[in-house]
């Protein structure tokens, strides 16, 4: 399972990076979103992969071994929401830049 997830993270990151290096702003937006998936999954996987052990306490007693690590999950949860906000900001800035410069090239002018 670890290999599967690692490969998936790698493919998401690779696709995202390829798009980051493209000249069109839309490609960069999509690329950043793909990178965000990869990074979120990566941080999440720092808590290791366990099935059927959500960090939701079933009883107030008992061992803690049956629960997944909640910390990476809490980190990623806010990261997902903030990620949405920054994607929106980037998109709007790029749209405004397209209006000003007349081009959707990342440098604001065609090369």
């Amino acid at each position, binding site marked *: 399972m670890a290999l599967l997830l690692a490969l998936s993270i790698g493919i998401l990151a690779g696709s995202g990076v390829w798009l980051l290096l493209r000249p069109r702003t839309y490609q960069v*937006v999509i690329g950043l979103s793909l990178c965000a998936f990869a990074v979120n999954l990566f941080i999440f996987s720092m808590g290791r992969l366990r099935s059927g052990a959500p960090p939701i306490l079933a009883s107030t007693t008992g061992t803690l071994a049956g629960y997944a690590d909640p910390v990476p999950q809490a980190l990623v949860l806010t990261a997902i929401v*903030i990620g949405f906000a920054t994607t929106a900001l980037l998109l709007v800035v790029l749209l405004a830049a397209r209006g000003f410069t007349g081009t959707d090239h990342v440098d604001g002018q065609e090369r």
Partner: protein
Amino acid sequence: MTDDVLLTMLIVLPFVGSLLAATFRPNARNSEAWLAGGVALICLFLLVFAYPAIVERGVLRSEAEWIPALGLGFSLRLDGFAWMFALLVTGIGFLVVLYARYYMSPNDPVPRFFSFLLAFMGSMLGIVIAGNLIILLFFWELTGIFSFLLIGYWHHTAGARDGARMALIVTGFGGVALLAGVVLIGQIVGSYDLDQVLASGEAIRSHVLYLPALVLILLGTLTKSAQFPFHIWLPNAMAAPTPVSALLHSATMVKAGVFLLTRLWPVMAGTPEWFWLLGLAGMAALVLGAFFAIFQHDLKGLLAYSTISHLGLITMLLSLGSPLGAVAAIFHMMNHATFKASLFMAAGIIDHETGTRDMRKLGGLFTYMPVTATLAMVASAAMAGVPLLNGFLSKEMFFAEAIETHVHSLLDTSQPYVAVIASTFAVTYSLRFIHSVFFGQKSGDMPRVPHEPPFWMRVPSMFLVLACLVVGIFPAATVGPYLLTAVQSVLGTRTPVFSLAIWHGFNLPLIMSAVALVAGALLYLALKNYLRHSPEGPPVLRHLNGRHLFERGVIVLSLKWSRAAEMALSTRRLQPQLRILLLAAALAALVPISMGSLGLPGPDWRDLDPALALVWLAGAGCAIGAAHQAKYHRLVALVLLGGAGLATCITFAWFSAPDLALTQLLVEIVTTILILLGLRWLPKRFEQITTEEDPSRRRLRRSRDLAIAFVVGAGMATLAYAVMVLPMPETVGSYFLERAYTEGGGRNVVNVTLVDFRGFDTLGEITVLAAVALTIFALLRRFRPAPDNVGSPLQQRRQNAFDEAEPDRKAGDTLGDYLLVPSVIMKWLFPVIIVLAIYLFLRGHDLPGGGFAAGITLATAFILQYLASGTTWVEDRLRILPVNWIGLSLLLAAMTGMASWLFGYPFLTSHSQYVELPLIGAVPAATALFFDLGVFGLVVGATVLMLIALAHQSVRKLRASRTTTAQAVREEA
């Protein structure tokens, strides 16, 4: 009053006054003057009040803890010398405030002026009474900053801006050198405390680091006191309003340099290095300043160069290393301040009344303003060193010191002659100041017919001139005891016997004075006609313009060289920058891997679930597909991006993260809507169009990027795999798991972590969210699309054309028709989704859900209504006011945190219990719920605001961007 209160008040009062002054109305000249004058007077009284204690105890001290770990205290100390200087700052400060009340025009925004002036006064007092070199340095830099702001007060003129910048660069450079020098002193002594530094003179002078420390400190002090060759900033600082020139650039700030030299005189003076470095610098400033002053046509320019010359005189006196020299230096600091401030005020009055400061245009003003003329004449005579005035006394002391032998050398032997020459020049420029302005032919060139200024504008000048006279005639009875206190605090046991008297008998200094007076008068007679018509600056040397040299230097350094370095080493293009960044990251990651083998265990195929493998087969395909399609098929890429997001979402659910899966799913929805809304404003792009770029180069570029992407992807995969197969160490996670229920009162540990344990982080995050939403809103208010996007999209135009062609249809019907079924479902779903949002919110503390998820759910409910029925329809029926949601929610979250203060707990401490609700049953009710409510409301507000702001662009009447660069390029072609 204790010493602590007194010393602290001296520093704090001006800054408090400065803050207050900044709040007044722009034309409140009178109240500003009352405030600033009041502050200066109170400080003056405090000082007068403190004098007996200083005589009795020597030094007043105040200590407060500041950074005990570094051995730094916030210590203040007021001794006789500091007292005299502080008296000068507050006394002349008060007079300058009074003068400025009449000098400033009603059109000048005075709050800024008086606020800066008071802050400057506070900083200057800080330098003077600092008990610690680091604190002294702090206030030193502050005076530089306020001097910059005051020189640039009339920032609409280029002269003010350039002068301010030059002063800041030169004195700022000196400040850095001084900091280094002070650090060296601190290293030698082992403390920055002034008392300790003053007690370790022998250690400092014999240390190897003495010379570097001396050079650095001299760089700092000589730049501040405008000594050769750093003097260039002072004449250019004359662009400041005249009250500023009077206070900062003659009486106080420029004396900070010689003040510090005097402070450190007991520990650093007396060595050959000190004598040579300081002596040469002082002599150069003394002679050149006086010489240049003769040839200035601007009244203030003449005074500026004369200030440089007089500061050179003080520096030279300090360089001698003899106690009597130090006495003369201290005495001359005071004398120079009184007559020079008064002369600046006179220059300001002349400028104010005639509209010009050019001596070639002025003349015969005595008949128009006899009182001002008389005052200026007395002050000028003091500057020239005429008997019966204070300038004469300190000059005599200077002559007496110059003929003494201190260090056998050429420099020492030449001193008497240099002193007489400089003094001759001083007489010449003083005469010129008086004669060319007040006497001679009445000039027809003056912009206005002059008359006497208001009485109160003359009072400060009058007071200072009176001081010159009284000190000049009865020195021992008036200034004597105070000077002695000041000298004793600097020299201690080395205090020499000195007599302040006008008549010391018929001796050599008196003859030198007489020679200088006669020679100066003759020189003026010889130059008088030349000066009437000569261009600015001294003959020959005028081509060596320090200001031009400085500006050339700045341009070469900050523009040409930095631009060249940028061209050579960097780029402004995004793609190469990103490439470098990614390659650097990849290389950095390769280093640890290449140093030792990772020793990764082989994959364990047994736990591989084929279902998840299939999910990721699709997910990876979607990711690669999105990367491939994003250029020409944006919608396809967006759909594929959603596919990859869905695979991520399933993975979260698979590996025990229901909260993440829920949030990811909801965020996927709003992200897709967001990007869909943005698609409309992007240019059309067709695959057929190819660039002129060489296909082989293009292929090379693309394969290089592909290689980078592959390397980064492979690296990420390796890193992720390496971490995942390592055994899990003990983490903070168990802490949260243990305490989530007992202390946070919730079973959903992720939610409890977010709203309780790490609530402060979450508060920060929602603040960011709010800021981003408002930024987007603000950006879109002035949105100008590119011209090709202004009209409706093709599909919409076609539909509307069809609708208009049919007699029984109106525009928009086709759209309404084919969205009919979805729109009815979406409208029906509105209440359902609201209930779902409330449900997710309420159960969040115990089960997957919570403020973030519920907030996005509710936002989706609103957005669906927009999608179903259009912006106009929704906004006719529903007022959402997302900005209010954002503001109130942020307030709620912050207030929840603050409420715990009422119970004596730290910020954001929560209390929890279960509440029995009718029908629903036990509901977790922690105070964290209110915090989560804030999160919820903020997420709703922010998400809705972003999406609606973008959606509104389609219904707004938009203007195209005026001239886009693309258009400009086309027009040029």
